[in-house]
Protein backbone atom coordinates (compact mmCIF):
# COMPACT_ATOMS: atom_id res chain seq x y z
CA UNK A 1 0.00 0.00 0.00
CA UNK A 2 2.81 2.35 0.92
CA UNK A 3 4.54 1.42 -2.31
CA UNK A 4 1.33 2.14 -4.21
CA UNK A 5 0.99 5.58 -2.62
CA UNK A 6 4.61 6.46 -3.24
CA UNK A 7 4.23 5.48 -6.87
CA UNK A 8 1.06 7.53 -7.17
CA UNK A 9 2.73 10.53 -5.56
CA UNK A 10 5.62 10.32 -8.00
CA UNK A 11 3.24 10.29 -10.94
CA UNK A 12 1.23 13.20 -9.59
CA UNK A 13 4.35 15.32 -9.09
CA UNK A 14 5.55 14.55 -12.60
CA UNK A 15 2.08 15.31 -13.97
CA UNK A 16 2.00 18.67 -12.20
CA UNK A 17 5.41 19.57 -13.62
CA UNK A 18 4.11 18.76 -17.07
CA UNK A 19 0.98 20.82 -16.61
CA UNK A 20 3.16 23.70 -15.49
CA UNK A 21 5.30 23.41 -18.61
CA UNK A 22 2.21 23.36 -20.82
CA UNK A 23 0.71 26.42 -19.16
CA UNK A 24 4.00 28.24 -19.58
CA UNK A 25 3.99 27.24 -23.23
CA UNK A 26 0.51 28.64 -23.82
CA UNK A 27 1.43 31.82 -21.96
CA UNK A 28 4.50 32.33 -24.14
CA UNK A 29 2.44 31.51 -27.22
CA UNK A 30 -0.15 34.16 -26.45
CA UNK A 31 2.57 36.71 -25.71
CA UNK A 32 4.46 35.89 -28.91
CA UNK A 33 1.41 35.90 -31.11
CA UNK A 34 1.85 38.06 -34.20
CA UNK A 35 -0.01 41.28 -33.49
CA UNK A 36 -0.10 40.62 -29.74
CA UNK A 37 -3.76 39.75 -29.03
CA UNK A 38 -3.57 41.32 -25.59
CA UNK A 39 -2.42 44.61 -27.05
CA UNK A 40 -5.01 44.34 -29.81
CA UNK A 41 -7.91 43.88 -27.44
CA UNK A 42 -6.65 46.74 -25.31
CA UNK A 43 -6.52 49.06 -28.32
CA UNK A 44 -9.96 47.95 -29.44
CA UNK A 45 -11.45 48.64 -26.04
CA UNK A 46 -9.80 52.07 -25.95
CA UNK A 47 -11.21 52.90 -29.36
CA UNK A 48 -14.65 51.87 -28.11
CA UNK A 49 -14.29 54.68 -25.61
CA UNK A 50 -13.22 52.86 -22.47
CA UNK A 51 -10.83 54.50 -20.08
CA UNK A 52 -7.32 52.96 -20.01
CA UNK A 53 -7.92 51.58 -16.52
CA UNK A 54 -11.23 49.99 -17.45
CA UNK A 55 -9.69 48.53 -20.59
CA UNK A 56 -6.77 47.12 -18.62
CA UNK A 57 -9.11 45.50 -16.13
CA UNK A 58 -11.21 44.04 -18.93
CA UNK A 59 -8.14 42.58 -20.67
CA UNK A 60 -6.87 41.18 -17.39
CA UNK A 61 -10.15 39.33 -16.92
CA UNK A 62 -9.91 37.85 -20.41
CA UNK A 63 -6.30 36.75 -20.48
CA UNK A 64 -5.38 36.46 -16.84
CA UNK A 65 -2.78 39.20 -16.88
CA UNK A 66 -2.55 42.98 -17.17
CA UNK A 67 -1.06 44.42 -20.36
CA UNK A 68 2.00 46.67 -20.11
CA UNK A 69 3.24 45.00 -16.93
CA UNK A 70 6.61 43.26 -16.84
CA UNK A 71 6.63 39.77 -18.33
CA UNK A 72 7.25 38.25 -14.92
CA UNK A 73 4.39 40.01 -13.18
CA UNK A 74 2.12 39.00 -16.05
CA UNK A 75 3.29 35.41 -15.79
CA UNK A 76 2.81 35.38 -12.01
CA UNK A 77 -0.68 36.77 -12.31
CA UNK A 78 -1.54 34.22 -14.98
CA UNK A 79 -0.36 31.28 -12.88
CA UNK A 80 -2.15 32.65 -9.83
CA UNK A 81 -5.44 32.70 -11.71
CA UNK A 82 -4.85 29.19 -13.04
CA UNK A 83 -4.37 27.94 -9.50
CA UNK A 84 -7.93 29.10 -8.89
CA UNK A 85 -9.13 27.26 -11.97
CA UNK A 86 -9.71 30.58 -13.67
CA UNK A 87 -8.87 30.24 -17.36
CA UNK A 88 -10.02 33.76 -18.22
CA UNK A 89 -13.03 34.91 -20.21
CA UNK A 90 -14.10 33.79 -23.62
CA UNK A 91 -13.91 36.37 -26.40
CA UNK A 92 -16.30 34.54 -28.73
CA UNK A 93 -19.04 34.14 -26.17
CA UNK A 94 -18.79 37.52 -24.48
CA UNK A 95 -18.46 37.40 -20.75
CA UNK A 96 -18.69 33.64 -20.32
CA UNK A 97 -15.79 32.15 -18.39
CA UNK A 98 -13.57 29.79 -20.37
CA UNK A 99 -13.79 27.18 -17.63
CA UNK A 100 -17.56 26.95 -18.11
CA UNK A 101 -17.23 26.85 -21.89
CA UNK A 102 -14.55 24.17 -21.85
CA UNK A 103 -16.36 21.97 -19.36
CA UNK A 104 -19.62 22.13 -21.26
CA UNK A 105 -18.02 20.99 -24.52
CA UNK A 106 -15.92 18.41 -22.70
CA UNK A 107 -19.18 16.81 -21.57
CA UNK A 108 -20.18 16.21 -25.19
CA UNK A 109 -16.82 14.84 -26.21
CA UNK A 110 -16.56 12.51 -23.25
CA UNK A 111 -19.97 11.03 -24.05
CA UNK A 112 -18.99 10.45 -27.66
CA UNK A 113 -15.52 9.14 -26.92
CA UNK A 114 -16.63 6.86 -24.11
CA UNK A 115 -19.34 5.25 -26.22
CA UNK A 116 -17.08 4.98 -29.26
CA UNK A 117 -14.12 3.63 -27.34
CA UNK A 118 -16.08 1.01 -25.42
CA UNK A 119 -17.71 -0.09 -28.64
CA UNK A 120 -14.39 -0.38 -30.46
CA UNK A 121 -12.70 -2.06 -27.50
CA UNK A 122 -15.41 -4.70 -27.41
CA UNK A 123 -15.30 -5.35 -31.15
CA UNK A 124 -11.53 -5.20 -31.29
CA UNK A 125 -11.02 -7.66 -28.47
CA UNK A 126 -13.53 -10.20 -29.75
CA UNK A 127 -12.29 -10.02 -33.34
CA UNK A 128 -8.69 -10.06 -32.12
CA UNK A 129 -9.29 -13.34 -30.31
CA UNK A 130 -10.84 -14.80 -33.46
CA UNK A 131 -7.95 -13.53 -35.58
CA UNK A 132 -5.50 -15.16 -33.18
CA UNK A 133 -7.33 -18.48 -32.97
CA UNK A 134 -7.69 -18.74 -36.75
CA UNK A 135 -4.38 -17.07 -37.58
CA UNK A 136 -3.38 -19.54 -40.25
CA UNK A 137 -6.66 -19.36 -42.13
CA UNK A 138 -8.11 -16.82 -44.55
CA UNK A 139 -10.44 -15.54 -41.83
CA UNK A 140 -7.51 -14.69 -39.58
CA UNK A 141 -5.42 -13.13 -42.33
CA UNK A 142 -8.37 -11.15 -43.61
CA UNK A 143 -9.16 -9.81 -40.14
CA UNK A 144 -5.54 -8.77 -39.68
CA UNK A 145 -5.43 -6.88 -42.96
CA UNK A 146 -8.78 -5.17 -42.31
CA UNK A 147 -7.57 -4.33 -38.81
CA UNK A 148 -4.33 -2.80 -40.06
CA UNK A 149 -6.15 -0.86 -42.72
CA UNK A 150 -8.80 0.55 -40.40
CA UNK A 151 -6.14 1.26 -37.81
CA UNK A 152 -4.08 3.06 -40.42
CA UNK A 153 -6.76 5.15 -42.10
CA UNK A 154 -7.14 8.58 -40.54
CA UNK A 155 -10.41 9.36 -38.79
CA UNK A 156 -11.48 12.04 -41.21
CA UNK A 157 -11.42 9.66 -44.16
CA UNK A 158 -13.72 7.29 -42.29
CA UNK A 159 -15.93 10.09 -41.03
CA UNK A 160 -16.30 11.83 -44.39
CA UNK A 161 -17.06 8.64 -46.25
CA UNK A 162 -19.68 7.70 -43.66
CA UNK A 163 -21.23 11.16 -43.65
CA UNK A 164 -21.41 11.33 -47.42
CA UNK A 165 -22.91 7.94 -47.96
CA UNK A 166 -25.26 7.71 -45.02
CA UNK A 167 -26.45 11.29 -44.83
CA UNK A 168 -26.54 12.19 -48.49
CA UNK A 169 -27.43 8.93 -50.13
CA UNK A 170 -29.64 7.33 -47.53
CA UNK A 171 -30.78 10.30 -45.41
CA UNK A 172 -30.32 8.14 -42.32
CA UNK A 173 -29.24 10.68 -39.78
CA UNK A 174 -29.32 14.41 -39.43
CA UNK A 175 -26.04 16.19 -38.95
CA UNK A 176 -27.27 19.53 -37.68
CA UNK A 177 -26.29 20.64 -34.19
CA UNK A 178 -28.21 19.14 -31.30
CA UNK A 179 -31.38 21.12 -30.76
CA UNK A 180 -30.77 23.40 -27.82
CA UNK A 181 -34.47 24.01 -27.21
CA UNK A 182 -35.22 20.47 -26.12
CA UNK A 183 -35.48 19.93 -22.41
CA UNK A 184 -32.66 17.61 -21.30
CA UNK A 185 -34.03 14.61 -19.47
CA UNK A 186 -35.73 11.31 -19.93
CA UNK A 187 -38.23 12.44 -22.54
CA UNK A 188 -38.62 10.77 -25.90
CA UNK A 189 -37.77 13.74 -28.09
CA UNK A 190 -34.54 14.45 -26.28
CA UNK A 191 -33.36 10.86 -26.38
CA UNK A 192 -34.29 10.53 -30.04
CA UNK A 193 -32.31 13.66 -30.80
CA UNK A 194 -29.27 12.36 -28.92
CA UNK A 195 -29.45 9.03 -30.68
CA UNK A 196 -29.71 10.50 -34.14
CA UNK A 197 -26.86 12.91 -33.49
CA UNK A 198 -24.54 10.78 -31.43
CA UNK A 199 -24.90 7.31 -32.88
CA UNK A 200 -23.26 7.99 -36.22
CA UNK A 201 -20.26 9.85 -34.75
CA UNK A 202 -19.81 7.11 -32.16
CA UNK A 203 -19.96 4.42 -34.84
CA UNK A 204 -17.49 6.34 -37.02
CA UNK A 205 -15.24 6.67 -34.01
CA UNK A 206 -15.48 2.98 -33.22
CA UNK A 207 -14.88 1.99 -36.84
CA UNK A 208 -11.73 4.04 -37.08
CA UNK A 209 -10.27 2.82 -33.80
CA UNK A 210 -11.20 -0.83 -33.32
CA UNK A 211 -8.45 -1.95 -35.70
CA UNK A 212 -5.79 -1.02 -33.18
CA UNK A 213 -7.42 -3.10 -30.46
CA UNK A 214 -7.86 -5.98 -32.89
CA UNK A 215 -4.16 -6.01 -33.74
CA UNK A 216 -2.99 -5.67 -30.14
CA UNK A 217 -5.38 -8.35 -28.92
CA UNK A 218 -4.33 -10.70 -31.69
CA UNK A 219 -0.65 -10.43 -30.95
CA UNK A 220 -1.30 -10.63 -27.23
CA UNK A 221 -3.37 -13.81 -27.57
CA UNK A 222 -0.81 -15.39 -29.89
CA UNK A 223 1.95 -14.71 -27.40
CA UNK A 224 -0.04 -16.07 -24.44
CA UNK A 225 -0.99 -19.21 -26.40
CA UNK A 226 2.73 -19.88 -26.75
CA UNK A 227 3.30 -19.56 -23.00
CA UNK A 228 4.37 -22.67 -21.14
CA UNK A 229 1.58 -22.56 -18.60
CA UNK A 230 -1.05 -23.06 -21.28
CA UNK A 231 0.53 -26.36 -22.35
CA UNK A 232 1.04 -27.23 -18.69
CA UNK A 233 -2.66 -26.65 -18.02
CA UNK A 234 -3.57 -28.88 -20.95
CA UNK A 235 -1.31 -31.60 -19.59
CA UNK A 236 -3.09 -31.34 -16.25
CA UNK A 237 -6.37 -31.99 -17.99
CA UNK A 238 -7.78 -28.55 -17.31
CA UNK A 239 -11.11 -28.01 -19.05
CA UNK A 240 -10.88 -26.12 -22.37
CA UNK A 241 -13.33 -23.49 -21.14
CA UNK A 242 -11.10 -22.76 -18.16
CA UNK A 243 -7.99 -22.65 -20.35
CA UNK A 244 -9.78 -20.20 -22.63
CA UNK A 245 -10.38 -18.01 -19.60
CA UNK A 246 -6.69 -18.26 -18.67
CA UNK A 247 -5.70 -17.12 -22.15
CA UNK A 248 -8.27 -14.34 -22.27
CA UNK A 249 -7.36 -12.89 -18.90
CA UNK A 250 -3.63 -12.94 -19.54
CA UNK A 251 -3.99 -11.56 -23.04
CA UNK A 252 -6.36 -8.72 -22.23
CA UNK A 253 -4.21 -7.34 -19.42
CA UNK A 254 -1.89 -5.22 -21.57
CA UNK A 255 -4.90 -3.94 -23.50
CA UNK A 256 -6.33 -2.19 -20.48
CA UNK A 257 -3.32 0.08 -20.47
CA UNK A 258 -3.86 0.86 -24.13
CA UNK A 259 -7.52 1.52 -23.36
CA UNK A 260 -6.78 3.93 -20.52
CA UNK A 261 -4.17 5.77 -22.58
CA UNK A 262 -6.42 6.11 -25.58
CA UNK A 263 -9.24 7.47 -23.45
CA UNK A 264 -6.87 10.28 -22.54
CA UNK A 265 -5.82 11.02 -26.08
CA UNK A 266 -9.35 10.94 -27.35
CA UNK A 267 -10.59 13.95 -25.46
CA UNK A 268 -8.61 15.85 -28.04
CA UNK A 269 -8.57 13.12 -30.63
CA UNK A 270 -12.14 13.27 -31.80
CA UNK A 271 -11.48 16.56 -33.62
CA UNK A 272 -12.19 15.20 -37.08
CA UNK A 273 -15.26 13.22 -36.13
CA UNK A 274 -16.74 16.24 -34.36
CA UNK A 275 -15.93 18.43 -37.32
CA UNK A 276 -17.40 16.08 -39.90
CA UNK A 277 -20.59 15.48 -37.90
CA UNK A 278 -21.04 19.02 -36.61
CA UNK A 279 -20.76 17.71 -33.09
CA UNK A 280 -20.32 20.36 -30.37
CA UNK A 281 -17.34 18.85 -28.51
CA UNK A 282 -13.84 19.87 -27.43
CA UNK A 283 -12.34 19.43 -30.86
CA UNK A 284 -14.96 21.62 -32.50
CA UNK A 285 -14.41 24.20 -29.79
CA UNK A 286 -10.65 24.20 -30.29
CA UNK A 287 -11.06 24.66 -34.05
CA UNK A 288 -13.59 27.44 -33.63
CA UNK A 289 -11.45 29.29 -31.09
CA UNK A 290 -8.44 29.06 -33.40
CA UNK A 291 -10.50 30.20 -36.38
CA UNK A 292 -11.71 33.25 -34.45
CA UNK A 293 -8.40 33.79 -32.69
CA UNK A 294 -9.95 33.46 -29.25
CA UNK A 295 -6.68 32.81 -27.50
CA UNK A 296 -7.89 32.38 -23.95
CA UNK A 297 -10.43 29.80 -25.00
CA UNK A 298 -7.83 28.08 -27.16
CA UNK A 299 -5.31 27.82 -24.31
CA UNK A 300 -8.03 26.57 -21.99
CA UNK A 301 -9.08 23.84 -24.39
CA UNK A 302 -5.50 22.80 -25.08
CA UNK A 303 -4.71 22.71 -21.37
CA UNK A 304 -7.70 20.47 -20.66
CA UNK A 305 -6.83 18.14 -23.54
CA UNK A 306 -3.28 17.78 -22.23
CA UNK A 307 -4.44 17.26 -18.68
CA UNK A 308 -6.70 14.46 -19.85
CA UNK A 309 -3.70 12.69 -21.36
CA UNK A 310 -1.61 13.13 -18.24
CA UNK A 311 -4.39 11.89 -15.97
CA UNK A 312 -5.05 8.93 -18.27
CA UNK A 313 -1.34 8.06 -18.14
CA UNK A 314 -1.42 8.01 -14.36
CA UNK A 315 -4.63 5.97 -14.34
CA UNK A 316 -3.18 3.46 -16.81
CA UNK A 317 -0.15 2.88 -14.66
CA UNK A 318 -2.12 2.67 -11.44
CA UNK A 319 -4.67 0.37 -13.08
CA UNK A 320 -1.85 -2.01 -13.89
CA UNK A 321 -0.76 -2.19 -10.29
CA UNK A 322 -4.32 -3.08 -9.32
CA UNK A 323 -5.04 -5.79 -11.88
CA UNK A 324 -1.65 -7.45 -12.23
CA UNK A 325 -0.59 -9.40 -9.16
CA UNK A 326 3.03 -9.31 -10.35
CA UNK A 327 3.07 -5.56 -9.88
CA UNK A 328 0.53 -5.47 -7.07
CA UNK A 329 2.30 -7.85 -4.76
CA UNK A 330 5.84 -6.94 -5.80
CA UNK A 331 8.69 -9.33 -6.38
CA UNK A 332 8.98 -11.83 -3.54
CA UNK A 333 6.75 -9.76 -1.24
Amino acid sequence: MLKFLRRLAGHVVRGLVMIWIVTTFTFVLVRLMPGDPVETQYETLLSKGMSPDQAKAQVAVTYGFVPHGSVWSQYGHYLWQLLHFDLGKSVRAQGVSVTTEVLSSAKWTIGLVLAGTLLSFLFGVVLGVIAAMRRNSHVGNGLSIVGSLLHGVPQYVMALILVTFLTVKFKLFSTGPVDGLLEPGLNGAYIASIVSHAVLPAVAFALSSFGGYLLSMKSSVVSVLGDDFILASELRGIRPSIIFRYVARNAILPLFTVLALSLGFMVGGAVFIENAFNYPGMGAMLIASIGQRDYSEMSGAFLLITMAVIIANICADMLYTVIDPRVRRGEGA
Partner: protein
Amino acid sequence: MSTTVEVPVVKPVVPARRTKFLTNLWKVLRRKPSRMIGAFIVALFVVMGVIGPWLYPDNLPKSADLLAGPSLSHLLGTDFEGADVLAELVIGSRYVLTAAAVAALVTVVVGVAVGLYAGYRRGRPDSALMRITDFVLTIPGFPLLLVLTTVWKFDSALQMGLVLGLTGWGGLARSVRSQTLSLRERGFVEAARGLGLSTPHIVSRELLPNIAPYVAMNLLIGVTTFIYSQVGLFYLGVLPYNSTNWGVMIQLAVNNGVTQTGAGLSYLMAPLVAILLLTLGVVLLVDAMDEVFNPRLRED
Protein backbone atom coordinates in the same frame (compact mmCIF):
# COMPACT_ATOMS: atom_id res chain seq x y z
CA MET B 1 25.40 -33.99 -10.51
CA SER B 2 25.43 -31.65 -13.45
CA THR B 3 27.12 -34.08 -15.70
CA THR B 4 25.44 -32.60 -18.67
CA VAL B 5 25.73 -33.96 -22.16
CA GLU B 6 24.25 -30.84 -23.67
CA VAL B 7 26.56 -29.32 -26.25
CA PRO B 8 26.41 -25.54 -25.96
CA VAL B 9 25.80 -24.03 -29.35
CA VAL B 10 27.09 -20.48 -29.65
CA LYS B 11 25.15 -18.62 -32.26
CA PRO B 12 27.47 -16.53 -34.39
CA VAL B 13 26.51 -12.89 -34.15
CA VAL B 14 26.33 -11.55 -37.66
CA PRO B 15 25.40 -7.90 -38.01
CA ALA B 16 22.67 -7.52 -40.58
CA ARG B 17 24.21 -5.50 -43.38
CA ARG B 18 22.19 -3.36 -45.68
CA THR B 19 22.70 -5.41 -48.77
CA LYS B 20 21.56 -8.47 -46.89
CA PHE B 21 18.51 -6.58 -45.76
CA LEU B 22 17.61 -5.58 -49.31
CA THR B 23 17.99 -9.09 -50.71
CA ASN B 24 15.97 -10.44 -47.78
CA LEU B 25 13.28 -7.86 -48.38
CA TRP B 26 13.09 -8.81 -52.04
CA LYS B 27 12.81 -12.49 -51.16
CA VAL B 28 10.07 -11.86 -48.62
CA LEU B 29 8.25 -9.50 -50.99
CA ARG B 30 8.05 -12.16 -53.65
CA ARG B 31 6.54 -14.69 -51.27
CA LYS B 32 3.11 -13.08 -51.40
CA PRO B 33 1.58 -11.18 -54.32
CA SER B 34 -0.13 -8.81 -51.88
CA ARG B 35 3.28 -7.54 -50.77
CA MET B 36 4.36 -6.84 -54.33
CA ILE B 37 1.16 -4.85 -54.77
CA GLY B 38 2.00 -2.90 -51.61
CA ALA B 39 5.50 -2.09 -52.85
CA PHE B 40 4.08 -1.10 -56.22
CA ILE B 41 1.52 1.27 -54.68
CA VAL B 42 4.13 2.97 -52.52
CA ALA B 43 6.51 3.29 -55.47
CA LEU B 44 3.69 4.74 -57.56
CA PHE B 45 3.03 7.48 -55.01
CA VAL B 46 6.72 8.35 -54.82
CA VAL B 47 6.95 8.66 -58.60
CA MET B 48 3.76 10.72 -58.63
CA GLY B 49 5.14 13.17 -56.09
CA VAL B 50 8.52 13.49 -57.78
CA ILE B 51 7.70 13.82 -61.48
CA GLY B 52 3.92 14.16 -61.56
CA PRO B 53 3.66 17.94 -61.14
CA TRP B 54 6.02 18.57 -64.13
CA LEU B 55 3.38 17.07 -66.40
CA TYR B 56 0.86 19.82 -65.76
CA PRO B 57 0.95 23.56 -66.54
CA ASP B 58 1.12 26.05 -63.67
CA ASN B 59 -2.39 27.31 -64.31
CA LEU B 60 -4.77 24.47 -64.92
CA PRO B 61 -7.23 25.02 -67.78
CA LYS B 62 -10.76 25.38 -66.48
CA SER B 63 -13.63 23.49 -68.03
CA ALA B 64 -17.10 24.97 -68.08
CA ASP B 65 -18.42 21.77 -66.59
CA LEU B 66 -18.33 22.32 -62.81
CA LEU B 67 -18.22 19.43 -60.29
CA ALA B 68 -18.58 16.94 -63.13
CA GLY B 69 -18.31 13.20 -62.71
CA PRO B 70 -15.52 11.14 -64.28
CA SER B 71 -15.31 11.28 -68.05
CA LEU B 72 -12.74 10.57 -70.73
CA SER B 73 -11.39 14.13 -70.78
CA HIS B 74 -11.42 14.36 -66.98
CA LEU B 75 -10.69 10.93 -65.56
CA LEU B 76 -11.65 11.92 -62.03
CA GLY B 77 -14.10 14.65 -62.92
CA THR B 78 -13.77 18.39 -62.25
CA ASP B 79 -13.87 20.61 -59.18
CA PHE B 80 -16.17 23.53 -58.40
CA GLU B 81 -14.11 25.77 -60.71
CA GLY B 82 -13.99 23.24 -63.50
CA ALA B 83 -10.34 22.21 -62.98
CA ASP B 84 -9.31 18.60 -63.56
CA VAL B 85 -9.34 16.65 -60.28
CA LEU B 86 -6.66 14.17 -61.34
CA ALA B 87 -4.30 17.04 -62.15
CA GLU B 88 -5.00 18.61 -58.76
CA LEU B 89 -4.44 15.30 -57.03
CA VAL B 90 -1.06 14.85 -58.70
CA ILE B 91 0.06 18.46 -58.16
CA GLY B 92 -1.21 18.35 -54.59
CA SER B 93 0.81 15.26 -53.80
CA ARG B 94 4.04 17.24 -53.95
CA TYR B 95 3.47 19.42 -50.88
CA VAL B 96 2.10 16.48 -48.93
CA LEU B 97 4.89 14.06 -49.79
CA THR B 98 7.69 16.63 -49.45
CA ALA B 99 6.51 17.65 -46.00
CA ALA B 100 6.23 13.99 -44.98
CA ALA B 101 9.74 13.28 -46.27
CA VAL B 102 11.22 16.25 -44.40
CA ALA B 103 9.36 15.23 -41.26
CA ALA B 104 10.67 11.69 -41.65
CA LEU B 105 14.22 12.98 -42.00
CA VAL B 106 13.93 15.14 -38.87
CA THR B 107 12.37 12.26 -36.96
CA VAL B 108 15.14 9.88 -37.94
CA VAL B 109 17.94 12.28 -37.08
CA VAL B 110 16.52 13.35 -33.73
CA GLY B 111 14.94 10.02 -32.79
CA VAL B 112 17.95 7.88 -33.62
CA ALA B 113 20.42 10.31 -32.03
CA VAL B 114 18.44 10.54 -28.78
CA GLY B 115 17.61 6.83 -28.66
CA LEU B 116 21.14 5.67 -29.47
CA TYR B 117 22.79 8.05 -27.05
CA ALA B 118 20.40 7.16 -24.23
CA GLY B 119 20.68 3.44 -24.84
CA TYR B 120 24.45 3.51 -25.32
CA ARG B 121 25.36 5.70 -22.38
CA ARG B 122 22.61 4.52 -20.00
CA GLY B 123 22.53 5.97 -16.49
CA ARG B 124 21.89 9.68 -16.04
CA PRO B 125 21.86 10.88 -19.65
CA ASP B 126 19.45 8.05 -20.36
CA SER B 127 16.94 8.97 -17.68
CA ALA B 128 17.18 12.67 -18.54
CA LEU B 129 16.58 12.04 -22.24
CA MET B 130 13.76 9.63 -21.54
CA ARG B 131 12.02 12.24 -19.40
CA ILE B 132 12.11 14.61 -22.35
CA THR B 133 10.93 11.84 -24.65
CA ASP B 134 8.04 11.06 -22.31
CA PHE B 135 7.11 14.71 -22.38
CA VAL B 136 7.10 14.83 -26.19
CA LEU B 137 5.01 11.66 -26.24
CA THR B 138 2.49 12.93 -23.70
CA ILE B 139 1.73 16.27 -25.34
CA PRO B 140 -1.17 15.48 -27.67
CA GLY B 141 0.43 16.03 -31.07
CA PHE B 142 -2.46 17.03 -33.26
CA PRO B 143 -4.03 19.58 -30.88
CA LEU B 144 -0.53 21.02 -30.49
CA LEU B 145 -0.23 21.40 -34.26
CA LEU B 146 -3.61 23.12 -34.29
CA VAL B 147 -2.45 25.59 -31.66
CA LEU B 148 0.80 26.18 -33.55
CA THR B 149 -1.13 27.17 -36.68
CA THR B 150 -1.86 30.45 -34.90
CA VAL B 151 1.87 31.26 -35.01
CA TRP B 152 3.05 29.63 -38.25
CA LYS B 153 1.36 29.71 -41.61
CA PHE B 154 3.13 26.63 -43.00
CA ASP B 155 3.51 28.23 -46.43
CA SER B 156 6.32 25.88 -47.38
CA ALA B 157 6.30 22.14 -47.16
CA LEU B 158 9.74 22.44 -45.56
CA GLN B 159 8.36 24.34 -42.60
CA MET B 160 5.47 21.92 -42.21
CA GLY B 161 7.82 18.95 -42.31
CA LEU B 162 10.11 20.52 -39.73
CA VAL B 163 7.30 21.11 -37.23
CA LEU B 164 5.79 17.65 -37.82
CA GLY B 165 9.20 16.04 -37.31
CA LEU B 166 10.01 18.00 -34.17
CA THR B 167 6.73 17.00 -32.53
CA GLY B 168 6.83 13.39 -33.69
CA TRP B 169 10.22 11.86 -32.84
CA GLY B 170 9.30 10.51 -29.39
CA GLY B 171 8.12 7.08 -30.42
CA LEU B 172 11.16 6.38 -32.58
CA ALA B 173 13.58 7.51 -29.85
CA ARG B 174 11.89 5.13 -27.44
CA SER B 175 12.13 2.12 -29.70
CA VAL B 176 15.70 2.86 -30.83
CA ARG B 177 16.70 3.08 -27.19
CA SER B 178 15.16 -0.27 -26.32
CA GLN B 179 16.74 -1.84 -29.42
CA THR B 180 20.13 -0.47 -28.41
CA LEU B 181 19.68 -1.76 -24.89
CA SER B 182 18.78 -5.21 -26.15
CA LEU B 183 21.82 -5.21 -28.46
CA ARG B 184 23.94 -4.31 -25.44
CA GLU B 185 22.39 -7.15 -23.51
CA ARG B 186 23.35 -9.56 -26.25
CA GLY B 187 26.94 -8.60 -25.62
CA PHE B 188 27.44 -6.66 -28.85
CA VAL B 189 29.06 -3.63 -27.34
CA GLU B 190 31.20 -5.47 -24.82
CA ALA B 191 32.46 -7.83 -27.50
CA ALA B 192 33.37 -4.92 -29.78
CA ARG B 193 35.09 -3.12 -26.89
CA GLY B 194 37.00 -6.25 -26.12
CA LEU B 195 38.29 -6.19 -29.67
CA GLY B 196 39.58 -2.67 -29.02
CA LEU B 197 37.17 -0.90 -31.37
CA SER B 198 36.49 2.80 -30.87
CA THR B 199 33.11 4.18 -29.87
CA PRO B 200 32.41 5.83 -33.27
CA HIS B 201 33.23 2.55 -34.93
CA ILE B 202 30.98 0.57 -32.62
CA VAL B 203 28.11 2.99 -33.12
CA SER B 204 28.43 3.36 -36.87
CA ARG B 205 29.49 -0.16 -37.79
CA GLU B 206 27.93 -2.41 -35.16
CA LEU B 207 24.86 -0.67 -33.74
CA LEU B 208 23.50 1.44 -36.60
CA PRO B 209 23.34 -1.34 -39.20
CA ASN B 210 21.41 -3.47 -36.74
CA ILE B 211 18.97 -0.73 -35.90
CA ALA B 212 18.55 0.60 -39.45
CA PRO B 213 15.98 -1.95 -40.68
CA TYR B 214 13.92 -1.37 -37.58
CA VAL B 215 14.07 2.38 -38.09
CA ALA B 216 13.06 1.94 -41.72
CA MET B 217 9.95 0.05 -40.71
CA ASN B 218 8.92 2.57 -38.08
CA LEU B 219 9.58 5.33 -40.54
CA LEU B 220 7.27 3.89 -43.14
CA ILE B 221 4.46 3.88 -40.59
CA GLY B 222 5.56 7.33 -39.41
CA VAL B 223 5.38 8.81 -42.90
CA THR B 224 1.72 7.86 -43.17
CA THR B 225 0.92 9.57 -39.87
CA PHE B 226 2.72 12.70 -41.03
CA ILE B 227 0.66 12.69 -44.22
CA TYR B 228 -2.56 12.27 -42.28
CA SER B 229 -1.73 15.07 -39.84
CA GLN B 230 -0.97 17.72 -42.44
CA VAL B 231 -3.87 16.77 -44.67
CA GLY B 232 -6.00 16.97 -41.54
CA LEU B 233 -4.74 20.46 -40.72
CA PHE B 234 -5.67 21.76 -44.16
CA TYR B 235 -8.96 19.90 -44.14
CA LEU B 236 -9.99 21.57 -40.88
CA GLY B 237 -9.40 24.91 -42.55
CA VAL B 238 -7.16 26.38 -39.87
CA LEU B 239 -4.48 27.16 -42.48
CA PRO B 240 -4.77 29.51 -45.45
CA TYR B 241 -5.15 27.76 -48.80
CA ASN B 242 -2.25 29.15 -50.75
CA SER B 243 -1.17 25.92 -52.32
CA THR B 244 -2.90 22.96 -53.84
CA ASN B 245 -2.78 19.88 -51.67
CA TRP B 246 -5.03 17.01 -50.69
CA GLY B 247 -6.22 18.61 -47.46
CA VAL B 248 -7.27 21.78 -49.24
CA MET B 249 -9.12 19.67 -51.79
CA ILE B 250 -11.10 17.91 -49.06
CA GLN B 251 -11.83 21.19 -47.32
CA LEU B 252 -13.06 22.87 -50.50
CA ALA B 253 -15.16 19.86 -51.44
CA VAL B 254 -16.84 19.91 -48.02
CA ASN B 255 -17.31 23.69 -48.18
CA ASN B 256 -18.90 23.35 -51.60
CA GLY B 257 -21.50 21.03 -50.18
CA VAL B 258 -20.36 17.74 -51.62
CA THR B 259 -21.19 15.92 -48.38
CA GLN B 260 -24.66 17.50 -48.38
CA THR B 261 -25.69 17.21 -52.02
CA GLY B 262 -23.47 14.49 -53.40
CA ALA B 263 -22.64 16.54 -56.49
CA GLY B 264 -18.97 16.25 -57.44
CA LEU B 265 -18.51 13.12 -55.37
CA SER B 266 -15.32 12.21 -57.23
CA TYR B 267 -13.80 15.56 -56.21
CA LEU B 268 -14.19 14.64 -52.51
CA MET B 269 -13.39 10.98 -52.96
CA ALA B 270 -10.18 11.41 -54.99
CA PRO B 271 -7.96 12.57 -52.10
CA LEU B 272 -9.74 10.26 -49.63
CA VAL B 273 -9.19 7.24 -51.84
CA ALA B 274 -5.60 8.32 -52.47
CA ILE B 275 -5.03 8.23 -48.70
CA LEU B 276 -6.79 4.88 -48.40
CA LEU B 277 -4.68 3.46 -51.20
CA LEU B 278 -1.44 4.76 -49.73
CA THR B 279 -2.41 3.27 -46.35
CA LEU B 280 -3.11 -0.06 -47.99
CA GLY B 281 0.26 0.03 -49.75
CA VAL B 282 2.11 0.81 -46.55
CA VAL B 283 0.21 -1.86 -44.57
CA LEU B 284 1.11 -4.50 -47.14
CA LEU B 285 4.72 -3.40 -47.32
CA VAL B 286 5.09 -3.29 -43.53
CA ASP B 287 3.76 -6.86 -43.40
CA ALA B 288 6.75 -7.85 -45.55
CA MET B 289 9.26 -5.84 -43.52
CA ASP B 290 7.87 -7.32 -40.34
CA GLU B 291 8.78 -10.74 -41.60
CA VAL B 292 12.32 -9.68 -42.48
CA PHE B 293 12.91 -8.55 -38.90
CA ASN B 294 10.93 -11.21 -37.07
CA PRO B 295 11.64 -14.49 -38.81
CA ARG B 296 9.58 -16.12 -36.05
CA LEU B 297 6.42 -14.81 -37.68
CA ARG B 298 7.08 -16.78 -40.81
CA GLU B 299 4.35 -19.23 -41.60
CA ASP B 300 5.53 -22.75 -42.21
